[in-house]
């Protein structure tokens, strides 16, 4: 099984790492970039496929050169075998459409030059853009089937089909099981969790971890960067020019006004405590 995982860098929104200016705008320069958390789930799904069926996992990202660190993280934490970064100035400011077109070209080049891909995994959505469109649009561009909201995955390599449990949200959440032919795009639901119920799977997992640690130490040797020329992309159809949508403005969410006044009373303040009891008395039932 050869899997590709699409992954993007996002600002590290965790406490202590993220930085906002006075107006509540994100300060990208001061906030470190990390792998999009949902992509870790997608990588987990790819890893499960590799552990169970063997094969290869490639991390692919479109973004600035700094995203190399995100791909390195993908290798380190989720054991990707190698990395491809689609990066140059012409690609800057792509919206989801232009991103999908670019990713699709990258994947097609990969198929021509490296190997046929069986599965493309993408995350549910990113922590910053949050559109959740990139995966489906990439599937559309590739003209591949797509299964979204995947909770569990079972692959039959001989029949070349996958069986997935997927979450269907509605009045009541339901889980349905679907089948799809390979190759296929899979969007992992944030609730997806890989399972390793046999000793040999766990041993394989452990072996991969050891192998990856050595590999991730010199990530650069396993990283290939392609620019728009490598991808044979017309600058008019990518980046800002190729993006039909524009973010016109971003408004910080105003702080909610407080509706009640708080009075602070120290435990030692007897008068104050008397007042509390009086106030509470109004709510006490019975006599």
């Amino acid at each position, binding site marked *: 099984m050869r899997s590709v995982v699409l992954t993007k860098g996002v600002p590290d929104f965790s406490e202590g790492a993220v930085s906002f200016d006075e107006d509540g705008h994100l300060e990208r320069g001061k906030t470190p970039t990390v792998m999009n958390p949902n992509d870790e789930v997608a990588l987990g799904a790819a890893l499960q496929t590799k552990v169970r069926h*063997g094969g290869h996992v490639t991390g692919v990202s479109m973004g600035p050169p700094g995203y190399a660190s995100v791909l390195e993280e993908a290798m380190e934490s989720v054991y990707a075998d190698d990395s491809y970064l689609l990066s140059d100035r012409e690609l800057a400011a792509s919206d989801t459409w232009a991103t999908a077109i670019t990713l699709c070209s990258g994947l097609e080049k990969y198929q021509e030059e490296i190997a046929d891909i069986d599965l493309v995994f993408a995350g549910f959505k990113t922590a910053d853009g949050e559109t959740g469109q990139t995966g489906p649009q990439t599937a559309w561009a590739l003209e591949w089937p797509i299964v979204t909201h995947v909770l569990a995955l079972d692959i039959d390599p001989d029949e070349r089909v996958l069986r997935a449990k997927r979450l269907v949200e509605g009045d009541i959440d339901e889980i349905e099981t679907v089948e799809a032919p390979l190759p296929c795009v899979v969007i992992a639901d944030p609730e997806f969790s890989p399972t390793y119920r046999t000793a040999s799977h*766990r041993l394989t997992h*452990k072996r991969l971890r050891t192998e990856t640690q050595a590999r991730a130490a010199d990530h650069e040797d396993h990283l290939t960067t392609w620019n728009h020329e490598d991808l044979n992309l017309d600058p008019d159809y990518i980046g800002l020019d190729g993006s039909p949508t524009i973010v016109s403005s971003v408004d910080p969410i105003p702080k909610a006004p407080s509706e009640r006044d708080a009075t602070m009373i120290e435990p030692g303040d007897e008068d104050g405590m008397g007042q509390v009891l009086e106030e509470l008395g109004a709510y006490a039932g019975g006599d």
Partner: protein
Amino acid sequence: MATSKRTRADDEYEHYEAVVVGCGPGGAAAAARFADHGVETLVLERGPEAGSKNVSGGLIYAEESAPYTIDDLFENFREEASERPVTDYEIHNISGNKVKTYDLTDLHEHDTEWCDAVLRRPMDSWLEQRVHEKTSETGGGVLTDVRVDGLLRENGEIVGVTCDELDPITADIVVAADGVNSELARDAGLMDWEDPDEWFQGVKATVEMDAETIADRFGIDDDEGVAHLFSGDLFDDVRGGGFLYTNEDSLSIGTVFHLDSLVAEQAEPHELLDSLLTHPLLAQWFRDEYHEREYAAKLVPDSKKVAHREPYRDRLVLVGDAAGQMQAQGPIIKGMNHAVSAGALAADAYVVSRGNADPESVGRRYTKMLERSGTMEKLRPRRYDLARTVGEHDAVANAVDRVLESPIGSVAIGNPLSKRAMKLAYNSPFLVSMLPDTATGYVTLPSIIGEEHGRTIHWDNEIEPPSLEERIGELTYDTDVGNPHIHLRDDSAEASGAAVYACPVSAEDFGGGCYRSETVRANGSEETLVSLDTQPCVECGTCAVVADTDWEHPRGGKGVEFREG
């Protein structure tokens, strides 16, 4: 595909030739030996890393007469996994502030090729890596965070193991090296958790002390180490003793008591440890500085009583503590070395019996090897069985104690001639192995020796050991919230009250421990009931014996995690 290779055609389960449960010294030795023989071996360990669940004193012995020693099986063990060799060995007989010290080097060196102090987290995790390397080469490996929760049976016959975390696994040979609280030995009906008389409880503090200070205070070089034992009246009437061993940059200080005696005296284990820590004799080493890195506890089997003479059933064999193979040779405690011998012998037994249609041929062969190598005789000395029937008889014991305590007895022991005789007696492995388990050996005799021959210690020991609450606070837990691993079957004080004091992380009048007793009024009468909260549990096994519980280990990776051991 890797999986189908191992799945037997007629079987839905994954199959390994050998499954070893537990990666302590016993399991590590078995697995290493299997790998040497080319056997495909899977090792399952419930801790997040081997050693994270384990506690010992710990001196690991390499006996000259042993069939295997740990450095036979693991190259560079001493250089890479142990702390310091023991170059000086003493026992202190204590009576109040009076102490008489005997050099025990003769006893210690008897049959000893070498002996090193170890800490179990670093030692066992080192072993785990070596074992994983070795077993990977023969198609297996070590998996941590996996708890085996029972035996897999087919038509009533043991054919493998079941786990919380994995699907059932079948094997041609299952080695239970799962330690003193072996769930597998119980599942197989080979051992039980009934009689406190068959167990010791060990409690230990690992104490910070840098190498320079150790050199200075104990007067030793980097490649030297000391072992001190303590007995006498500092533990009141509880039968047992204390130890202090030097590590590279810490001290291991602890106590080992007969569990029945702890229960009978209603003693608090942490207080007994504190009695040792705060004794004036220890002031010379602490000099009022005391920083405890870790507090830990574990049951210890008494091989004289429980070492199973035929530790097998079907294709299951027990090794180490799981089989009760823990020898208390007087004050010297030998468990790790025997676990190593037994583990290696079990693997050898499998290899010579391979192909025999009768699954129990391995167990029979292993039993023979334990006997022929002299291991079983060390574990269950015949002469002890003889001496015990006389010595532990209450009437006789009391009579002996009365004579010893009488002016005549004291004079006899206080006699300058007996001074030498006593030291010789202590150093005789023969006599020591015959000592009956009465207060005489542990309390009366050492106190009298201390009293009659001892010199008075005038140092003040001002250290304050941490409280139980602080000790628990320092431990690392990954609590399995909502899924306690011990259930109280009977919460009456009669059935389970002993756990309130005998549990090393509980105490009378302490609300933050595992066991608490509370008085409830019902129908006009008062009743004392016992309640249990397993969160602070250090998984020592004590309450499995002294209380009425359903006792299991936590799921893989959950529960307490020792860093020193």
